C-alpha cells in the first residue's frame, strides 16, 4: 500500500512537471524567405529581421512567458520549393504561424497549403491578389501598390497636374504598377498621354524621354526599382526636361540618390515608406520611436542599413506576437487575433485589420517626399 502511494505521488510529480513544461513550452514561428536567388534583396533582410526580433523577444522572457523559436527555410524565390517547405513547416516542424514568403508568386503557391491545413500565413510580398479576394488564413504586410500611386495622384491634384507620361519597367513590379496607375488615372480623371516602358537592365532611356519631351505632359511617373530609375533621372537632366518627375516607392532609399547623383535627383518626388525617411519625420509621429529603434538595432547587429523589406517581416512578427499576447498561441487563436488587430503601430504603417481587409494599411503608410540637396524632405 505504501509502495503504491509513493508510486502515485511520483507519477503525479512527473505529470505535473510535464504539464508545467508544456505551459512554458516554445511557440514555433515558421519563416519562408528567398534568402538566396534573384529575390534575395527581399529575403535576406526579412530573415535577419525575424532572427533579430526572436532573439530580442527571448532575451526579454518571451511572449506571455513562452519562448519563441524561429524555423526559417530558404525558398530561393522558387514557388514549388516554397510550397514544399510550407508543408514541411506545418507537418514536421509543427509551427503555429508562417511569416513569408518574400515574393507574390511564392505566396500564391503557398496559399492553398495553409488554407487546407488551417495555419495563418503573413506574406511579405506586395501583390494585391494575395489578399484580394480575402482568404481567411492569409494576411500580408506590404501596402498595395495602388496606395502609393494614389498618394502621387493626390499630390498631383493639389498641384493641378492633369496629363501624365508613364515610364514603367517591364518586370512584375512595373507591370503591376502600370496597370494600377492606368485604372486609377481613369477613376480620378487624369489623362495618360504617353505609356512608355524600359527593360530592367536597360542603360539608356533618352529615346523614351525624348518622345515624352515632345508630348509635353504635366508630369512624368516612373515605376521601377534600381538601377533603371537612377538612369532615367540622369537622362531627364541630360535632356533638360523640366517636367516634374515622380518615382515609385520602389526607390525610396538613399541608394537611389547616390546612384542618380544628388544633382540630377534634385526635385524628384516619390511616396516613401516611413522607414526610409524617418530622420525627416516629426518626433511626435507615432511610428518615429519604433522606426529609429529598428534601424539602429539592425545596423548594430548586421552593420548595414535596415530596409523597407526587412520591415515587412517586422510587421508580420508584431502582428503574430500581438495576437499571441491577446488570444493565445494556437493557429486558430493567432488567426483571430491578427484579424482583429487594431491600430498596431509598426514599420510599414499603422495596421487595422478586419474580416474584409487582411492588409490593414491605408494612405498614411506613405509620405510624399522630395529630394532636396541629396536628402529627403517631406512634402505637405
Amino acid at each position, binding site marked *: 500500500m505504501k509502495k503504491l502511494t509513493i508510486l502515485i505521488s511520483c507519477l503525479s510529480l512527473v505529470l505535473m512537471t510535464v504539464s508545467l513544461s508544456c505551459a512554458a513550452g516554445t511557440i514555433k514561428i515558421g519563416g519562408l524567405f528567398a534568402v538566396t536567388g534573384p529575390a534575395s*534583396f527581399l529575403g535576406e533582410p526579412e530573415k535577419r529581421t525575424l532572427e533579430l526580433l526572436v532573439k530580442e523577444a527571448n532575451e526579454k522572457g518571451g511572449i506571455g512567458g513562452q519562448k519563441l523559436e524561429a524555423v526559417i527555410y530558404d525558398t530561393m524565390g522558387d514557388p514549388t520549393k516554397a510550397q514544399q517547405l510550407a508543408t514541411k513547416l506545418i507537418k514536421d516542424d509543427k509551427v503555429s504561424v508562417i511569416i513569408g514568403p518574400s515574393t507574390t508568386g511564392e505566396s500564391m503557391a503557398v496559399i492553398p497549403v495553409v488554407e487546407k491545413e488551417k495555419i495563418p500565413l503573413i506574406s511579405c510580398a506586395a501583390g494585391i491578389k494575395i489578399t484580394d479576394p480575402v482568404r481567411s488564413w492569409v494576411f500580408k504586410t506590404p501596402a498595395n501598390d495602388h496606395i502609393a500611386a494614389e498618394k502621387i495622384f493626390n499630390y498631383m491634384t493639389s498641384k493641378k497636374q492633369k496629363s501624365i507620361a508613364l515610364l514603367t519597367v517591364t518586370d512584375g513590379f512595373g507591370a503591376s504598377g502600370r496597370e494600377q496607375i492606368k485604372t486609377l488615372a481613369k477613376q480620378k480623371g487624369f489623362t495618360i498621354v504617353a505609356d512608355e516602358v524600359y527593360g530592367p*537592365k536597360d542603360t539608356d532611356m*533618352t529615346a523614351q524621354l*525624348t518622345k515624352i519631351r*515632345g508630348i509635353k505632359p504635366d508630369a512624368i511617373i516612373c515605376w521601377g526599382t534600381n*538601377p533603371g530609375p537612377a538612369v532615367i533621372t*540622369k537622362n531627364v537632366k541630360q535632356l533638360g526636361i523640366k517636367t516634374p518627375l515622380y518615382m515609385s516607392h520602389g526607390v525610396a532609399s538613399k541608394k537611389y540618390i547616390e546612384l542618380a547623383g544628388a544633382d540630377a535627383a534634385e526635385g524628384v518626388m516619390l511616396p516613401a515608406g516611413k522607414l526610409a525617411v524617418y530622420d525627416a519625420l516629426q518626433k511626435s509621429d507615432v511610428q518615429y520611436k519604433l522606426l529609429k529603434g529598428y534601424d539602429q538595432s539592425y545596423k548594430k547587429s548586421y552593420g548595414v542599413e535596415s530596409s523597407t523589406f526587412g520591415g515587412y517581416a517586422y510587421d508580420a512578427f508584431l502582428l503574430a506576437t500581438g495576437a499571441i499576447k491577446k488570444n493565445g498561441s494556437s493557429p486558430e487563436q493567432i488567426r483571430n487575433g491578427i484579424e482583429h488587430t487594431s491600430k498596431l503601430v509598426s514599420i510599414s504603417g499603422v495596421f487595422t485589420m478586419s474580416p474584409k481587409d487582411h492588409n490593414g494599411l491605408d494612405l498614411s503608410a506613405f509620405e510624399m517626399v522630395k529630394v532636396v540637396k541629396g536628402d529627403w524632405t517631406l512634402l505637405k
Partner: protein
Amino acid sequence: MQFDQLLQYTLSGLSTGAIYALIGIGFSIIYNATGIINFAQGEFVMLGGLLTLSSLELLKLPLWAAIPCSVAFSTVIGILFERLAIRPLKQPTPINLVIITIGGSILIRGLAMLVWGKDTHAIPPFSGDTPIPVGGATILPQHLWILAITLIIIIINKIYFYHTISGKAMRACAYNRRAAGLVGIDVRRMVLFSFIISSAMGAVAGIIVAPLTMTAYDVGVMLGLKGFCAAIIGGMSSGISTVIGGLILGVLESLGAGLISSGYKDAIAFIILLLILFIRPQGLFGKADSERV
C-alpha cells in the same frame, strides 16, 4: 517628327552603339585568333567597371590611376582564364570551347557577386555631367569620352594588326592556323595575346560606360549579347565593319524605341541578329567565303 527629336535619337544611338562596337571587337578578335566565340566577353566589361570602383574606394586612387589599374587587373584575369580554362583542354573543339566560356562567364559573375554584392554602384563621370547642346539635342561629356576612346582603340587596333609582326602573325592564325604554325608562328601564344587584347578592351568599355549606365555584377550579360550582335552584323571582323555594326544597332534601337515603341527595344537587336544570320551570315559587309575543294 521634329528634327531635334530625330537628332537626339541618333546621338543617343551613336553613343550606345560605340559601346556595343567596342565589346563586339573583343568578340571578333578572339574569334579570329581561335575560332571560338568567347561568351565571357561581357564579364570583362563588368570587371572593368567594378574594379575601377574598388580602386577608387578601397585603394583611394584618383580616377586617372584607377582606370589603368583596373584594366591591368582585368587583363590578368583574362590571362588566367585562358591559361586555366582554355589552354589545358585536350580536345579543343569549338563546341567544347564555347561551353567552357559560358561556364567561365557564370563563374566570374558568381565570384563578382560575392565580392561586390548584388547592389548597383555608381562611378563619377570623367569630366562633369553638364549636358552639351548639339543643335537642339544634348549629349553628355561622357558620351564624347566614349566616342573618342572607341576611335582611339580602333586606330590602335588597325596599327597593331596591319603594321606589327605579332599583329600580322595573329591575322595569319585567323586565316589558317595550321599554315601559320608551319611557318613558325606560335599559335598558342597568339591565342593568349587575343585574350589579353580582348579582356583589356572589354574592361575599357566597362569603365567608360559605367558613369552613364552604372555597374553591377550582372551588367555583362546584356552588354555582352549586344556586343555579340554588333560583331555578327559586322561579320566577325576585328575592324571597321564591327564598329559600323555596333553603331547601326545602337541607332536602330534608339530610333525604334522613339518612333515605334519602347517595348520592342531589345527585340529590335535580336531581330536584326536573326535576319543577319539567316540572310547574310557573312555579315553586312563581308564577301561570302568561297570554299575551294
